[in-house]
């Protein structure tokens, strides 16, 4: 029959496991957030590339991806006028240059957010490592206790 001390140790180990699970779930959410930010950043970079290429393209013709790896040649009627979603579901017309500058600003913002999320993630991982160490130590002690009893 388990002694009170053993029961307390078991409870502590179970609690540590739960902490670990909890932190793991939080870390997953932050990783997901990082991925979203990275996708949005890449998308903005691709948009800048397209906007810059549009004005120098001969005859204003660009390749328009229509999904499934297929593209068609499309003629941009007004490459100098770009509709940009600036936030709060508001779309305004800007010049090509202004749109590029706006997107560059957004990229900088996203990079700052990525840095912040990464820092939080690092902190979480450090805490998880600490819990892992404590868990391992707890298991070893529990094993040693069982062996001593035998």
């Amino acid at each position: 029959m388990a002694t009170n001390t053993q029961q307390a140790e078991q409870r502590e180990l179970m609690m540590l496991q739960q902490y670990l699970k909890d932190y793991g779930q939080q870390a997953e959410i932050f990783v997901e957030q990082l991925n979203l930010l990275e996708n949005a950043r890449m998308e903005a970079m691709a948009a800048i590339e397209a906007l810059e290429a549009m004005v120098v393209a001969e005859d204003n013709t660009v390749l328009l991806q229509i999904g499934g790896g297929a593209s068609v040649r499309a003629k941009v009627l007004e490459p100098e006028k770009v509709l940009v979603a600036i936030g709060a579901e508001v779309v305004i017309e800007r010049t090509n240059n202004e749109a590029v500058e706006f997107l560059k600003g957004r990229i900088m913002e996203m990079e700052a957010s990525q840095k912040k999320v990464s820092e939080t993630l690092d902190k979480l991982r450090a805490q998880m490592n600490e819990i892992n160490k404590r868990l391992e130590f707890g298991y070893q002690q529990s094993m040693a206790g069982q062996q001593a009893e035998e």
Partner: protein
Amino acid sequence: MFGGLKERLQAARNRLSSSIGAVVATPVAEPVVPHLPPAAGTTEPEKTAAPGFVEKVKVLVLERELIVSDKNIAEALSELEMTLLESDVALPVTDAIIISVRKNLVGRHRKIGESVDAMVVSALKSALLEVLGKGFDLKEYINTHPRPVKILFTGVNGTGKTTSVAKIGSYLHKQGFSVVIGAGDTYRAGAIEQIAVHAERIGIKVIQHQEGADPSAVLFDTVQYAISHKIDVVLADTAGRFHTKSNLMNQLDKIKRVMKPDLVIYVDEAVAGNDAVIRAAEFDRTVGADAIVLTKADMDSRGGAAISIAHTIGKPLMFLGVGQSYDDIIPFDPAGVVDELLDGA
């Protein structure tokens, strides 16, 4: 917190100040309209609020003051509008801020040599305070209502509802209130264990059933426990849900019927920006909400949701989640947030 918005507001504030500062010492002459007597049967039109040329000169010569006109600040206000929209501040809220700033500045008499910045900051402050509302003092609410005060937490999945319940539990516990948590999220795997571990860490009793149990029953038991043990506050966690899932919304209706909450709190993440505002409005329409908690505010550089949510749905912001530990939740203080945004003002 809201670093991007702070930077942008600083730029908009400078722009407004320089626009007003650049007002020329001699007001521009306006076309003189001959004053004709009113035609028979008509009344003289009411005088408009805009100061005329004569008045401007009189004020400048006699009182050594300049009057700020709409024209002086039109461009700077347009930039402020863009600044707010780019920070994800909802359109109606942006409009309200612009109208308020314009109202506070246009027609203002400025003494020559008086700080323009102070005038602009005061106008911005008052505009932001108008849209931010008064906040919600939970401590005062609990102190002035019959115990137990039952608080139900709702919101979409993955926004930090359970963690917020634990943080608010810890906050209230430290304020001297007795608290019990109802583990009403019986749907998400591991949610009951998660809230139980939080509760143990902060020294709060948690009432729980098996995974998959009826959340209404869990929360009913929690309320009964609170009544019989004279507990001050019941914090009811629930599973995350979208307002479009009718079965889950029916479940929430049942929970409300059974536990009769005093407050329904909508939890969302500040980083969701305008989406959080739209979702909060939908939730308020379908199940009702008395106050809002925004999580992950420390990671939100734009601040759009925090600025817009109270004005858009007409319900106060109660807490901001600003980090990982239990103490990282701050009661929403509009004046504090405005001071922080207009740093040093």
